């Protein structure tokens, strides 16, 4: 057990040293991009819709750092032999995925700063309590699991890039994250209202405004998270036979 914890801590430290090397990318994607999008798009929409836009930027930023990163980096690890190297060092699939999950949760702290700066500068009501961090963290875990699932399903990097980018852009355009839900076409509304990005936006938005944290949206979001995590854990290939 002690050896496993040491391995996990070592792997997490390794990921953090890589993060330090590319910290400017994480800051660009997690901090500057949401603020830039808020500044650019905030001038176009009604002031009453700015809170929704801020949440959309927050979700997109955290998706960049958990969903997109997991989808691409885990595929690269598998293709370039890092996973096999770690397996020979005694790292198990659970350790590996757990270390990456902790890394994703650590990185998801960056967009929180951007959201608070955006709330202060764009005259959006600040959060009534820190309870909104609960659905936010669950969303980060769910997005990470979705990224792992994509990585498990693809065989090379280009499809992984396409899948995560399509997922991100599709979520922003098709799901009512940045705009009110009543604008979604009636035909696809039932489908969209149960999609993970919509539920994440609903749950974070409700708790940001002081509403109930553990409502229906949160329950559905947790269900999606467990489903995606289980599917990712089951399908993520590991080299047990080395």
């Amino acid at each position, binding site marked *: 057990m002690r050896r496993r914890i040491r391995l996990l801590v070592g792997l997490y430290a390794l990921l953090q040293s890589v993060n330090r090397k590319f910290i400017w990318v994480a800051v660009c994607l997690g901090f500057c991009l949401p603020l*830039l999008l808020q500044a*650019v*798009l905030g001038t*176009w929409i009604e002031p009453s819709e700015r809170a929704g836009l801020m949440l959309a930027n927050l979700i997109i930023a955290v998706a960049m750092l958990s969903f997109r990163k997991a989808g691409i980096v885990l595929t690269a690890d598998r293709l370039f032999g890092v996973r096999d190297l770690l397996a020979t060092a005694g790292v198990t699939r659970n350790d590996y995925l757990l270390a990456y999950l902790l890394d994703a949760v650590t990185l998801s702290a960056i967009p929180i700063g951007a959201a608070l700066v955006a709330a202060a500068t764009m005259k959006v009501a600040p959060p009534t309590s820190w309870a909104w961090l609960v659905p936010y963290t669950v969303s980060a875990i769910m997005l990470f699991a979705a990224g792992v699932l994509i990585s498990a399903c693809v065989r090379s990097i*280009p499809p992984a890039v*396409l899948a995560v980018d399509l997922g991100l852009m*599709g979520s922003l*355009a*098709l799901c009512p994250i940045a*705009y009110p839900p009543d604008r979604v076409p009636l035909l696809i509304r039932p489908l969209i209202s149960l999609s993970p990005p919509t539920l994440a936006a609903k749950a974070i938005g409700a708790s940001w405004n002081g509403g109930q944290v553990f409502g229906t949206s949160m329950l559905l979001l947790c269900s999606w998270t467990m489903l995606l995590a289980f599917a990712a854990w089951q399908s993520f290939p590991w080299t047990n036979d080395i």
Partner: protein
Amino acid sequence: MEYIRVLALLRVYGRQESAHIYLMLYDSFLMPALAAYLGFMLFVRDLERLRWWVAGCVAFGIAQGCLIQVGSAVLQDRFHGRLDLLRAAQVRPLTYYVAHILMTTGRALLLVWMAMLVLGALGVAQLGLLGLTIASLAAVCAGSSVGSLGAIIGLRATDYDQGNMLVAVTAVGFALVSPVFYALDRLPRPLQFVAMLSPLTHATTLLRTMVDGDPVSLGTLMLIGILAFVYNIASYRMLRWQG
């Protein structure tokens, strides 16, 4: 002789692109289309703002598609050994450069024509032959300038991973810093001058003029032409300088 070499290189890069055709389709068509849909949802019932937004989406697609295409191709050539192979085959830098720029302008043209076709079909804008020609000219200038910027990044990168990351970050950053999705006068004055050096600024202005059916400003047309020339010369000089 050089013409045949350019054609051969175009065939090579065409094959490379078609191996990942879905990525090209996403960058050039699906992503701008999704951005346009997002605009439609944000500014529902406001046709004026929607037109404005769609022209911005086209410019955004040019920035993404052209910069990433040339940047990635040059990086692959440099770090996967193809550049040495071309050098050994005595391919001149100009031939190599022209092949890349032709590929990228082709993509920009396709993107603009598709956008105009969709806008025409939706009845949002009707472009005549002159309008289509000027929109194409704007696409050629913006596509080649943005492509040359991708080539500069590809040529200056110290390793493949760093280059790829720089290309991706620059593509998004360049499009967002240029006043593509907002008016130029919203930028602080020193940044307005910097934005004037971006070909995307003028391409977006020209596209918006075309979509609105307003008369074209010759000054903007000349400015984007000059910028395309300067960007391409700088990029080509760097290619030659790197031997």
